[in-house]
């Protein structure tokens, strides 16, 4: 069994033993999404137009919620040292952790968001766009958030600082993700957006594991 798969399996097993942690994040997503119509008003046309942005923003905040614990648990119980001492690249370990985060957060959000989209009166094709763009866009969020989590390990006000660091870097993904759903709403295709989201995901994949590994090594010093 390779180290990468051992780490991935371990993290998934840990989440399986405490499913409440994931449920809370998804519940937050639902509550946050519902908050907007309550704050803005129930006018269906307006809601349909802003649904894309709301769903994406709520998904972003929900994903951020669970990121604080991504490395903090390992940092607090000493398991991070064991990862730093593993005889295989730390960049792969960072990737495994972010992948585990995506599987338990990004993936469920991508499946849950279209259901919320129904509350906003989105059309069938728009709902597909919501699911597809979240599926392709959330990996980048897990990686960016993973970097912010690694950089703020052991910092004061870690949670708020994590959001401050991650949110500006998530803006490109947010713009193209929400933009895709709006494109569908006005009758255009969303494949360009999807392609750009994919490119952003690849860019994150190509750069962030190294940054996350560097940040984790700093935490071990």
């Amino acid at each position, binding site marked *: 069994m390779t180290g990468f798969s051992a780490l991935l399996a371990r993290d998934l*097993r*840990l989440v399986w033993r405490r499913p409440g942690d994931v449920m809370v994040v998804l519940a937050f997503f639902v509550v946050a999404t519902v908050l907007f119509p309550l704050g803005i008003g129930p006018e269906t046309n307006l809601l349909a137009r802003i649904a894309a942005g709301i769903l994406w923003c709520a998904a972003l905040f929900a994903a951020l919620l669970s990121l604080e614990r991504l490395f903090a648990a390992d940092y607090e*119980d000493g*398991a991070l040292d064991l990862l730093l*001492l593993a005889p295989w690249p730390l960049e792969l370990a960072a990737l495994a952790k972010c992948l585990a985060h995506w599987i338990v957060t990004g993936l469920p959000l991508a499946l849950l968001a279209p259901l919320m989209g129904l509350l906003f009166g989105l059309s069938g094709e728009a709902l597909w766009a919501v699911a597809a763009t979240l599926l392709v866009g959330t990996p980048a969020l897990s990686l960016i958030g993973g970097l912010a989590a690694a950089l703020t390990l052991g910092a004061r006000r870690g949670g708020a600082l994590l959001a401050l660091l991650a949110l500006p870097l998530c803006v490109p993904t947010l713009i193209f993700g929400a933009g895709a759903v709006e494109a569908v709403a006005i009758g255009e295709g969303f494949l360009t957006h999807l392609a750009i989201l994919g490119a952003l995901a690849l860019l994150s994949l190509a750069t962030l594991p190294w940054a996350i590994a560097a940040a984790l090594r700093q935490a*071990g010093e």
Partner: protein
Amino acid sequence: MTELEVTGLSCRRGGRPVVRNISFTLARGELLALTGRNGSGKTTLLRALALLVTADEGAIRWQGTDIRHDRDGWRRQIAWLGHLDGLKGDLSVRENLATACHLRETPAIRVDDALAAFDLTLLANRAARTLSAGQRRRAALARVAAADAPLWLLDEPLNALDAPSQAALRTALGDHLAAGGLAIAATHAPIDVPNARVLELA
């Protein structure tokens, strides 16, 4: 035959020297006890040996080669016990040990023997968070024993251990050294093991 050679190792933390020009050698079957007061740099020295902390000066050689030329290779040679236990609370003791072996890309064949050596066989399927501090420390030591690594780096291994557990540690260490292993332990109390040397850090 000298396996580990440390020359002139120095580390600074926050601009102040914490490890000052430490040199020693260690041969197979030897234990080096690092003693000294709190804050004398024992933990920093251990972390520098494990390459968790970057030393400012000095060299660490394993079998003649600088360990920084093959970091992953060096990581295969060491098993680490830090201040913290490194156990995941929601996994059972056995799962913790097995996962630790897999994370080192070592087959988990010595897990049961290690559990037995530290009298954890009956607790093997309990979640780690249900164990007492002493039991968790034993589990962490069992993790080290199961790792199948020649050099053990132990930070305060006797902490939280009762008398029978300390005896188990002595036995496990003795077996490890007798089989040609090496160990470096930062400790307040003496570890009563044959071939033990002491390095006092000022």
